Each structure stands twice: as structure tokens, then as C-alpha cells.
């Protein structure tokens, strides 16, 4: 029967072209606006490490002096060199990495291209396996390279394309801030969004182009970028940051079960108490441990205006649907004689209901397709905005499917009342009044 209902729906839509067009446009406008904002929200609030994010944690401890202490006040987002190294060396997680961002000049060692600035990340060996970073060529460096301060680098595929035309560049050298470093690996397609492991670089910053061991970066005093927060006497001179009372490093640890996370929290608490006993920490012992998605929530990565726009767009979609209900009601009730005839000739209420809902579904499908085009146009406008996340606003397969499903389901639901009303028509009355 579905084929027959489809045939009838097409006939009916052809017969009432203007009314059909109005409904399709109403659905399309609602879907278009809704999917534009939902896509932006989806991109911004997506899981940057699907399947792994629940096992990746960043700790918060508070090494500051008592000055300015507020009970339950905000903690620090980063760690000091001393705490970072202590946590790193404790090796309590499956993997752990200490890191900071930087920006430095890069040039092929043969000088074939003029030097240019590239964003970089100074980190430790576990960074690569912990974040499951795919490697196009070569390998990551290892812990002994960290210890030995080996002059090695891992570069992004974009940088590899720029410097080596996409060929396997492992074993070749690049000059980083005046020092030649051997390329040991080239990263494949990897852009976690948001840039969760260091939000100081921008919530939606691009993945860095050059990765260098933290020990090497400190020895060469490679230019560092990001946030630094210091307290107490002493300065924040770049060359003595290891000893300064400053937080400037991010620390991430992989804990593969909730039990291990609970153990790690206990370990952190003991660590803080130990540091207090040593006189390094002054504030009451308090620790926090966030996994990736909790960290995104805590740092309110999704801009408030995006959430508001999404709510407004959903409200607009609802208004469009209410209009569609009205138009559909008018359309279906106008066909009450036809419904009466069909009922007299043997159509059950269920059959009439199914026939009219099929028509609603077709309108939803057409509205969805037009809405998809409007959403794509809307996303072009979003990408033209100066916001940092603008370039990320693309419709992926998941959102494309959601658009069509939402359009069809919402329109079919909008068709329920009109179809129900139409199939309640008393056929005898309709046929008598002819």
C-alpha cells in the first residue's frame, strides 16, 4: 500500500502546488536555521577524542601561597615545572605527558625556503600514544630521547607538504630556531576539536605544526607561548621557569578505568599533603581531576551565544512547524469529500491516516532537502564571520543524516493532528452533503 500512498501524495501535492510549496518552505526555513546553529553547536561541543576522552584526565592542584585564598575558589588550570615533573615521574597512569605551546621559526636545513613561523608543542614522549595520534610516516620519539635531549621533531602533514611536498621526510632535518633537528615522524590527519589539551592557545586552535621534546625546548629556550600565572617573590624569567612559582605547563594522564581514576585522585591528595608537609604548598589540600568532556564543560568551551542562537533557532523551527500544522490541517480538511469517498469504498481510518502521514513525510523530505541547502548557505555565512571557530562550521555526515531525519520526523509529527482530524470525518455526512 505504501507505493499507492506515495502515488496519491504526489498527485495531491501537484494539485495544491501553492499550499504544498508553502509547507515545504516553512519546514525548510525551520530546518535550515535549526541545522545551521546545531551544526555549529555540534562542532564546538563535539568529543575531541571519541572513544578515549573518558580515560584522559587533567589534574588541578593549588600550589599558590595563602595570599588571596578563597575557600572553594577557582583552582589553577596549569601546573608548575616541579609538580609537572613529579607527576610525570610518578608514572601512576598508563601514559602521562607534560607540555606547553610555542611558536618558532622553521626552515629546511638546506635553506631552500625562507624561515617562517610555525606553532609548536613542546612535550614528552607519551603525548603521541596517549592521544592516539596517527603517524603518516616514521614514529614518535621515546622516553630516552626525552632524557637524552635528542634533537628530534615530529611535524604535521601540512608542514611536510610545504617543506617536502608530502614525501616521507623522516631522517631529514629542519632548522628550528636556528638548530637542526632530525624529523622522526610525520603526523597524519589529526585535529582534535576543541583544542582540549591546551585551551590557552585558543579553544578551537589548529593542531601545532612542530612537536619537539620538552627537555630540548627548555635547553634551547625555544620561544614559549600560552598562559603563565605566577605568585610570591621571584620572577618569571624564561631561563629560570623551572624554579619559579609559576604555572605554565599542561599535564594529562591516561587512566583506563574509573577505579584507576579514583586511585589517582587519592594519589594527588597524598601528593598535595606531602608538599604541604614539605612547606611548598600552603593552601588547604584540595584536588580536582577532570576527564576531557568534564574539562570542556568546566572551561565553558562552547560560547554562550552559540547556545542561545541554537535555542532561538529551535524556537523558530517550532513556529514553522506550527504553521505547517495549520496549512496541513487546511489541506487535509479540504479533501474531506475524497476521504469520505475512500472510507465508503473500504478504506479504514488507519489506511486514511497512513495515506495522509505519507504525504506529510514527503513534504518533510522535500522540506529537509531544501532546508539542507539553506543550512549549507547559512554555514557559508558562519564561516565568513571573524569567530575563531568559524572555519570549523561544516556539515558532516552525522549532521546531514540528522537534518533529514529531523525534517521528516518533525513533519510527520506535525501531520499527526491534521491526519487524525481528517480520518475522523464522518463519511456519511460528507457524502450526504454533496
Amino acid at each position, binding site marked *: *500500500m505504501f507505493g*499507492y500512498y506515495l502515488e496519491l501524495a504526489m*498527485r*495531491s501535492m501537484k*494539485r495544491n502546488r501553492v499550499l504544498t510549496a508553502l509547507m515545504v518552505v516553512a519546514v525548510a526555513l525551520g530546518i535550515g536555521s535549526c541545522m545551521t546553529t546545531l551544526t555549529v553547536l555540534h562542532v564546538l561541543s563535539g568529543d575531541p577524542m571519541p572513544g578515549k576522552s573518558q580515560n584522559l584526565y587533567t589534574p588541578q592542584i593549588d600550589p599558590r601561597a595563602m595570599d588571596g585564598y578563597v575557600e572553594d575558589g577557582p583552582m589553577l588550570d596549569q601546573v608548575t615545572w616541579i609538580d609537572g615533573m613529579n607527576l610525570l615521574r610518578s608514572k601512576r597512569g598508563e601514559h602521562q605527558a607534560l607540555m606547553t605551546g610555542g611558536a618558532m621559526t622553521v626552515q629546511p636545513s638546506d635553506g631552500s625556503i625562507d624561515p617562517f613561523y610555525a606553532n609548536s608543542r613542546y612535550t614528552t614522549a607519551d603525548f603521541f600514544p596517549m592521544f592516539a595520534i596517527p603517524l603518516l610516516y616514521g614514529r614518535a620519539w621515546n622516553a630516552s630521547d626525552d632524557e637524552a635531549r635528542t634533537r628530534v621533531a615530529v611535524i604535521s602533514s601540512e608542514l611536510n607538504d610545504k617543506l617536502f611536498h608530502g614525501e616521507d621526510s623522516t631522517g631529514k632535518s629542519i632548522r628550528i630556531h636556528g638548530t637542526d633537528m632530525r624529523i622522526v615522524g610525520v603526523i597524519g590527519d589529526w585535529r582534535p576539536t576543541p583544542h582540549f589539551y591546551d585551551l590557552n592557545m585558543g579553544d578551537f586552535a589548529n593542531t601545532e605544526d612542530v612537536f619537539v621534546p620538552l627537555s630540548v625546548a627548555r635547553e634551547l629556550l625555544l620561544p614559549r607561548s600560552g598562559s603563565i600565572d605566577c605568585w610570591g617573590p621571584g620572577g618569571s624569567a624564561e631561563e629560570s621557569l623551572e624554579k619559579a612559582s609559576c604555572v605554565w605547563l599542561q599535564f594529562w594522564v591516561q587512566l583506563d578505568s574509573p577505579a584507576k581514576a579514583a586511585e589517582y585522585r587519592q594519589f594527588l591528595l597524598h601528593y598535595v599533603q606531602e608538599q604541604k608537609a614539605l612547606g611548598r604548598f600552603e593552601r588547604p589540600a584540595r584536588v580536582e581531576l577532570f576527564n576531557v568532556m568534564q574539562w570542556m564543560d568546566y572551561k565553558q568551551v562552547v560560547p554562550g551565544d552559540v547556545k542561545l542562537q541554537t535555542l532561538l533557532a529551535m524556537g523558530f523551527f517550532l513556529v514553522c512547524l506550527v504553521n505547517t500544522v495549520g496549512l496541513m490541517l487546511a489541506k487535509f480538511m479540504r479533501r474531506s*469529500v*475524497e476521504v*469520505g*469517498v*475512500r*472510507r*465508503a*469504498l*473500504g*478504506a*479504514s*481510518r*488507519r*489506511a486514511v491516516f497512513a495515506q495522509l502521514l505519507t504525504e506529510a513525510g514527503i513534504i518533510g523530505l522535500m522540506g529537509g532537502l531544501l532546508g539542507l541547502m539553506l543550512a549549507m548557505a547559512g554555514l557559508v555565512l558562519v564561516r565568513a564571520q571573524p569567530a575563531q571557530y568559524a572555519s570549523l562550521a561544516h556539515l558532516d555526515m552525522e549532521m546531514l543524516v540528522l537534518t533529514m531525519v529531523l525534517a521528516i520526523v518533525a513533519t510527520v509529527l506535525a501531520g499527526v493532528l491534521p491526519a487524525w482530524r481528517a480520518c475522523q470525518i*464522518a*463519511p*456519511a455526512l460528507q*457524502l*450526504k452533503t*454533496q
Partner: protein
Amino acid sequence: MLKMSHLAKVYRTEVVETYALRDFNINVKEGEFVAVTGPSGSGKTTFLTIAGLLETFTGGEYHLDGVEVSKLDDNARSRIRNEKIGFIFQAFNLIPDLNVFDNVEVPLRYRGMKAAERKQRIMDALERVGLASRAKHYPAELSGGQQQRVAIARALAGSPRLLLADEPTGNLDTQMARGVMELLEEIHREGATIVMVTHDPELAARAQRNVHVIDGQVVDLAEDPRFHAASHLADTAS
């Protein structure tokens, strides 16, 4: 074939109860051609819509082809309508944006019949009413008589056991009405059971049996005082 006993149909509002049918009794046997006559508002059409399971009734019993229909749900009533009853309406009630072929096909579609069988039945029915050559025409392209013939073909295509006709010639001129009536008589001769509602005494006279309805009840014209009063007045006037 069709038996109603003490049937009642009451329309209730908050302040008034209106009896469309009361203590309504009729028994139509298989193969009969019965004309139901009566003045406007007497309940003829209400009887026909109840007989065709388009409307429910308030009291009494109704057996159609041996089945007591008052307890049937909408699906079962629809199935009976589809398989056992053919309707012919005064206003033809063809669906304007379906051509003749597709109009006749409607009841067969709801029966879940295969396409080849549907086509065969449709063409047979159209042949029978003399409109096979108009299968691709739309209702608006046909005369009133032709439209009613299409409606009859639609009613016949499903091979129903009972044909219900509500003023089948009411919207037709005399010549077209005669043609339609001859067709109904022919269908009856071939064995169909027909119940026809009409207020036209000439048409009623062509049926096998007449049933007269006044004020929602079947009456015997020979004994009903209302009929005698009306006849007396008519005689006086003449």
C-alpha cells in the same frame, strides 16, 4: 442478505433527542431489487448509510450477510464495505484528479489485489457500463450520465454482494436517468441484490419491491393513516 430489526438512530444534543430512525424493520433477500421511498427527511438516506456501515446505529440489530455488525470495529466494517458493498451516490462522488481507470481502481486498491487482476476487473466493469474507451478520461471530461456509469463500474468492480444506490438518477436528465436505470435493472437481472433510495415514484415502480419510510419507520402504505390523510387531501384538491 440485509436484515434490520427494531433499529433506532438517535441524534442527541444537550437539549433535544431527534429520532432519525425508530423501530425500523426491513428484510432484503438475496437477489432482490428493493426501492426505498419516502418524503424528504423521512430517514431514507440515514437507513442507507447505516446499511452501508458508514454510520453506526443507536439500538436494535442489523445483520448483513448473516453477520451482526453492531460490535464490529472500524477495520472490520471497512473490510465488509470494501468486499461486500457497492455504493452509488446521487452526486457520483468520483475523485476529480483521478481518471476513470483510477477511480474504478480505488476499492480494489484497499483490497490488496494484484495489479493484473485489478486491471482485468476494471476493464471488465468499464466494458459492462460501456465506458472502456474512456478509461483515461477525467470525470470533468464526462457527462453526468457517464460519470454515474463510472460510479456504477466502481461499485461493480469489486463484485459486491449488495449494491446501495442513493438517488442514483437524482442529478441526471430524463434520458440519462433512463440509461442508468436500465443498467441497474440489467445488473439486477444478472443476480445482484440492489437497495435503491429514491423519492421518484416512477423509478420506485421499476423495482421488484417498494418499502416506504415515513418519520423514520417502515410503513405499510395501505394501512398507514398518514398516507390516507395525504391521499384524501390530494383527492379533494383535484
